[in-house]
């Protein structure tokens, strides 16, 4: 479709060019141009405004042309205009590069906005019109000049010559554009551009240089006229910054170099080509400078007229058009079958090769196998280092993957961080697994990307052909999924039972969505205790799912699915509101000096959710909960980026406290702890578990000391025995939670404990931790 569109544009431009070049004077050229531009774009209204005045218009009854409105539209002051009979019309306006400011403007009814292609076409038409008007003006001026002269005969001859010249120029351009439409050989088209330039300008030498695709520090001569082909053969190279064409490339504008107005280096370059002066226009491919068209004269102090500049620019533009068209046509085929980023085959090509391989396998013994690869935690790379580095990493991963396979095999990228490998002839059963291990160790070697050492772990699913109708790709995908579920950085061979797992998973996701809708989530609460007194200071709210068929489910059974589907955010909100409501009720029923605290877990998804701040604020307000009694728990891995720091700062500004859960298991650095607005560290249960025994409590001690020095409170998790409590008190830890005190229980069960042990409440001010 896009290609049809491009060729349609070129074709319309060619028609327009033929038409405009046939008009005898300015006014008819402008009127005709307006009309044809409107017809081409199916616009009801067309107009040309020049120097603030309306020069021509179509689309309104002759006696009711809204001049001011059209001028406003041309100047971009209104995006739509009301047109009797056509209703509200969308406006598009392009500049005419004339001596005075001008615009070609169209307005079209209906819903279709003007597309990029149409805008380009109209811009092209504007340029053609400018060119035609310029040559018409030259003609008019000359006519006026000659009128004063007696030499009627000579005048006629010259006029005829000018007319013929103009006709020749437009015919040349038209011919070039036709050959572009017909997809003539690119080299021929570029040669025609050079020949046309030489003929229409009548200068001594013309050359077209393009950047060397292998090394863009150099340009190559692609076509020339009038240059010494012994010294400057086609293909001869020059440095990209050399000469007039080099200047046009680097400065991306028309350059004129004459002996009286440019530096000696340029003149030396001209002199060795036997020239005294030259002008060069840049050539673009898809908007990027890729070369220059240069024309030079042997005459000393030759003056290049505006008309000559325009002619050079017009031919350069046609070269750009040809290059862009050729490039787009050539790449469209490749692009349809290859991944843009890595250049690897895409899914379409992969499936095609897989099908061929499978068909061949019907006749031969060796069977194909598919490896489905997914990079682990790749999102983290993008989040941490940015997409630029992420993309570069993907390119290098693709290259390493290619290094891991035999020449006949295929590596494809399916998008994102998904890759697939097709092994065409697997003669030994263990071969795919060997390749998988090779890939894993190859990717494990750190990649040096822009000064960062990044190593990548990958999960791989493997499927080999055993049945005729095996869907290898789907099976490998399932196996990969299983590999991920078992932990990252593994490979897994497909087994038929994986289908059942997939069905289960899909059911879970469906049920989970229903559960959110039906609010099937309940909370269990585990008290947080002041170790010295045994009083309850806060409760941690933990989510449970009352599944209609499977009963009460712990988070392990569904949180992963909730994270992946994004439902976690909705579940999180339900949890937060329930916890706030319940805590507010307890605070009312069991008043204490400082109110009972409540701790709620946040997932990384929630932290990135745009509604989080307003939801938290709304939950606090709806139930009248004292703002300082809310503790939000995050994990160390979330302490990574400024984005998260910003969110945490806002949460803190609402009055909530921030706790880092499972502290000590991640890789938080001191720096993070200082930079992020954190109030509480929760010592991971693994550090607490060893405390009752003879082990030295070095790590627990370190965390407690760290908390003290950073003015943070420390809560120990997973307390199971009186010994552990005693050791922690000795180490200076004031708070803890665990089965030793209470397992997580329903709100009603917990009430008995609250009534029995009494509530001391959670004082947000950290100063009391310094006292001990």
């Amino acid at each position, binding site marked *: 479709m896009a290609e*049809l569109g491009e*060729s*349609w544009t070129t*074709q319309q431009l*060619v*028609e327009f*060019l*033929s*038409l405009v070049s046939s008009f005898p004077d300015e006014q008819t050229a402008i009127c005709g141009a307006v*009309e044809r531009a*409107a*017809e*081409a*774009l*199916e*616009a*009801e*209204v*067309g107009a040309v405004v020049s120097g603030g005045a309306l020069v021509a218009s*179509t*689309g*309104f*009854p*002759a*006696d*009711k042309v809204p001049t001011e409105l059209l001028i406003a539209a041309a100047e971009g002051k209104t995006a739509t205009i009301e*047109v*009797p*009979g*056509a209703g509200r019309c969308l406006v598009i306006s392009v500049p005419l590069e004339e001596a005075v400011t001008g615009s070609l403007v169209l307005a*079209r*009814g*209906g819903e279709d906005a003007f597309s990029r292609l*149409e805008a380009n076409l109209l811009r092209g038409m504007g340029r053609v019109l400018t060119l035609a008007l310029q040559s018409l003006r030259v003609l008019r001026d000359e006519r006026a000049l000659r009128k004063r002269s007696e030499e009627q005969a000579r005048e006629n001859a010259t006029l005829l010559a000018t007319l013929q010249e103009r006709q020749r120029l437009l015919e040349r351009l*038209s011919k070039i*554009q*036709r050959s572009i*439409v*017909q997809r003539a050989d690119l080299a021929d088209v570029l040669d025609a551009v050079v020949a046309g330039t030489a003929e229409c300008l009548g200068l001594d030498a013309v050359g077209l240089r393009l950047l060397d695709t292998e090394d863009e520090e150099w340009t190559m001569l692609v076509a020339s006229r009038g240059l010494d082909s012994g010294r400057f053969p086609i293909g001869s190279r020059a440095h990209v910054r050399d000469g007039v064409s080099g200047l046009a490339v680097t400065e991306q504008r028309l350059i004129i170099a004459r002996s009286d107005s440019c530096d000696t280096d340029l003149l030396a370059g001209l002199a060795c080509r036997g020239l005294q002066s030259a002008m060069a226009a840049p050539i673009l491919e898809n908007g990027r400078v890729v070369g220059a068209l240069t024309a030079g004269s042997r005459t000393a102090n030759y003056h290049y007229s505006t008309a000559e500049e325009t002619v050079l620019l017009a031919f350069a533009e046609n070269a750009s058009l040809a290059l862009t068209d050729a490039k787009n046509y050539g790449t469209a085929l490749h692009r349809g079958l290859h991944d843009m980023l890595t250049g690897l085959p895409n899914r379409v090509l992969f499936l095609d090769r897989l099908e061929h391989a499978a068909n061949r396998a019907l006749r031969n013994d060796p069977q194909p196998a598919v490896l489905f690869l997914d990079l682990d935690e790749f999102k983290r790379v993008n989040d941490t280092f940015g997409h630029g580095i992420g993309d570069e990493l993907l390119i290098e991963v693709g290259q390493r993957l290619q290094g891991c396979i035999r020449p006949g095999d295929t590596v494809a990228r399916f998008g994102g961080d998904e890759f697939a490998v097709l092994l065409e002839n697997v003669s030994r059963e263990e071969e795919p697994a060997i390749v998988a291990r090779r890939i894993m160790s190859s990717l494990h070697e750190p990649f040096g990307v822009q000064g960062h050492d990044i190593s990548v772990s990958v999960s791989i699913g493997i499927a080999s052909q055993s049945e005729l109708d095996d869907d290898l790709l789907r099976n490998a995908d399932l196996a990969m999924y299983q590999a991920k579920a078992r932990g990252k950085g593994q490979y897994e061979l497909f087994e038929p039972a994986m289908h059942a797992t997939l069905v289960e998973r899909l059911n879970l996701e469906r049920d989970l969505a229903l559960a959110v809708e039906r609010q099937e989530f309940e909370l269990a609460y585990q008290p947080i205790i002041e170790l010295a007194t045994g009083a309850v200071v806060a409760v941690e709210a933990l989510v449970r799912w009352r599944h209609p068929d499977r009963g009460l489910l712990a988070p392990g059974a569904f949180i992963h699915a909730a994270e992946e589907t994004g439902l976690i955010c909705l579940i999180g909100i339900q949890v937060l509101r329930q916890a706030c409501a319940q805590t507010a009720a307890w605070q009312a029923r069991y008043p204490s000096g400082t109110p009972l605290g409540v701790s709620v877990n946040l997932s990384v998804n929630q932290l990135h959710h745009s509604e989080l701040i307003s939801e938290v604020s709304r939950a606090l307000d709806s139930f009248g909960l004292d703002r300082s009694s809310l503790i939000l728990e995050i994990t160390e891995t979330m302490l990574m980026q400024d984005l998260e720091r910003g969110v945490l700062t806002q949460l803190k500004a609402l009055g909530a406290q921030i706790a880092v859960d499972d502290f000590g298991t991640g890789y938080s650095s001191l720096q993070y702890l200082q930079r992020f607005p954190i109030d509480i560290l929760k010592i991971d249960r693994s550090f607490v578990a060893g405390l009752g025994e003879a082990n030295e409590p070095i790590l627990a001690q370190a965390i407690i000391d760290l908390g003290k020095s950073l003015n943070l409170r420390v809560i120990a998790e997973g307390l199971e025995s009186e010994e552990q409590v005693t050791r922690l008190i000795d180490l200076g830890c004031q708070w803890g939670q665990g089965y030793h005190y209470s397992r997580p229980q329903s709100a009603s069960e917990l009430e008995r404990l609250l009534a029995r042990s009494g509530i001391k409440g959670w004082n947000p001010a950290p100063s009391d931790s310094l006292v001990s």
Partner: protein
Amino acid sequence: MSDLTGRSGNQQSRWLAVGQSSDSDAGRAGEAATAQALIADDAQLLLVFCSHSYDLQELLAAINRRSGGVALIGCSTAGEIATAGPGDSGVVVTAFGGPGFAVSTACATDASDDLRNAGAKVAHCASALEDKPHRALMLLTDGLAGDQQEIVRGAYGVIGASVPLVGGCAGDDLKMQSTYQLHNESVLSNAVVGAALGSEAPLGIGVRHGWRRVGDPVVVTRSSDNRVYTLNDRPAVDVYLEHLSPPEEARHDPESFTRFALTHPLGLSGRSGEDHVRFVGEANFDDGSLGFIAEVPQGGLAWFMEGDDASVLEATDAACAAALAPLEGQQPLGLIAFDCIARRGILGDEGISTEVDRVARQAGGAPVAGFYTYGEIARTRGQSGFHNQTLVVLAVG
């Protein structure tokens, strides 16, 4: 007997009736058809479509005698259409009447001298029209006078987008010698006649062709006005014959060529991929050029096209439906069809009966009139309004 009549129920009253005669005597035919059409004494406009074989002066005199000089436009045809079906060598008179209509007519002669100006001159009658909420300008032109799009451009230049255009080019039963345009008491040739029609109710216009592309596109490498000399830089006739493999006699006999070309037009691609169909009128086997009824611009991309009964009839239904859409379900007073002679070529005599039946069915009992044209005019969107090989339907609400 009146062919059929349509009357409006609400607003200011309007009526439309169609009369028809195939009497070979011009005077009797004109008298009879007009008598059927004039079902009331407040007719505002007569639309006359007739065979060029009549003595047109006599026909017109009989009609005017009977109507007492009601404003009239009309033209010769390549076949007339009435509710009962299509016919040749006859006359169909359509009367628009009642205070709910407003009418203003005009004509321009010597159109080929300045086609654009002729279109502009006729379009001026729209500004004289009494103010009504719905308007259309009907143009009947001489299709042999030159590039018809120029006439449309001229009209558009005067009225702009404010008034939609509808109409067709007069015919001469495919003799391609001379066609006639009628205006009040004048029989004209090389002319444009027009009627600006204002109405209290919507006037809907539908356009469809029903052709499809054959093979690869060709580039119009050399053309001038209505002649195409080369396609893909080779003689246009050669390329045409190679692409379409016509019967042997069409390769050298101009007449068989024209018959074949009638059902194999050229499509010019438009903005939305929609084709503007151009009728290939004749071939010059000496210089290898092709002749068209309208301009084929040099440098353009074109396709050869073909059609069959099914595709042409589908287009009939679609054109009627599009014309009726602005009436929003209201019964029309009548449908006027401008149907390309080339479509008649494809459908054959039986097929065109089926086609007119289909139009009549869509009219839901309201009368139908029209003629087989040498080119069709319809402009509701954009600016291009000249068509070939197309059916244009005007639904009078």
